C-alpha cells in the first residue's frame, strides 16, 4: 500500500514539475489511476512518457506497494 501523497512524491523526484491526479480504483490503496501533466512530456512519444512515470514508480510496483496502475499523461497548455 502507498498513499496518494507518496505516489506524487515519487513521481516528482523524477518529474519535478509534474501535476499529479490520483484515483484509488478499488479503495485498497494499491490499484491506482494516475494522471500526470508535465512539460517534460512535450515532444516525447506517448509510450516513453508512460515509461517516465512507471519508472519513477518502479520500486513501489516491484515491492508490491502498488499492485496495478493505469497511467495517463499529457502536456500543459502553454
Amino acid at each position, binding site marked *: 500500500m502507498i498513499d496518494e501523497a507518496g505516489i506524487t512524491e515519487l513521481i516528482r523526484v523524477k518529474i519535478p514539475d509534474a501535476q499529479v491526479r490520483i484515483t484509488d480504483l478499488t479503495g485498497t490503496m494499491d490499484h491506482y489511476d494516475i494522471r500526470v501533466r508535465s512539460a517534460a512530456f512535450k515532444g516525447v512519444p*506517448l*509510450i516513453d512518457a508512460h515509461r517516465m512515470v512507471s519508472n519513477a514508480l518502479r520500486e513501489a510496483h516491484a515491492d508490491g506497494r502498488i499492485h496495478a*496502475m*493505469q497511467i495517463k499523461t499529457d502536456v500543459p497548455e502553454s
Partner: protein
Amino acid sequence: MNEIREKIDKEVAENTILVYGKGTKDAPQCGFTLETIEFFNHFGYPFQVIDVLQDTSKRQVLAEMTDWPTLPKVFIAGKFYGDTDILLPMAQNGELQKVLEDAFAGKGIKPTVKLH
C-alpha cells in the same frame, strides 16, 4: 534467462497481436487484462493472450526487454505497444487501425465483422 528470452521472441514472432496478461482469454484474472481482451475483441482481428501470472521469471524478462513494469503488455507485428493506456488514444486518432491493417495485410486476414 536466454531460454526464456528465446521463447518470448518466438511467441512474439508467431502472433501478430500478442497480449501477455494475467489469466487467459476465457478467464482473465485482472481487470486490466480483461479490458485489453475486450479492446481487441472490438477490432475483430485474431489475437493471442498468454498468461504469465504465475511465471515470475518470464515476467521479469518481459519487464526488462520492454522497459515496462506492468501487465498486460501488448505486441503488434513484433513491436511493443505498452497497454490500453497507449492503444486507446491511438485508436481514437486512427493510428491503431492503420497499424493493424498493415500488420495483417500481408497475411490476407481481414477483421471479422461483429454484429452487436
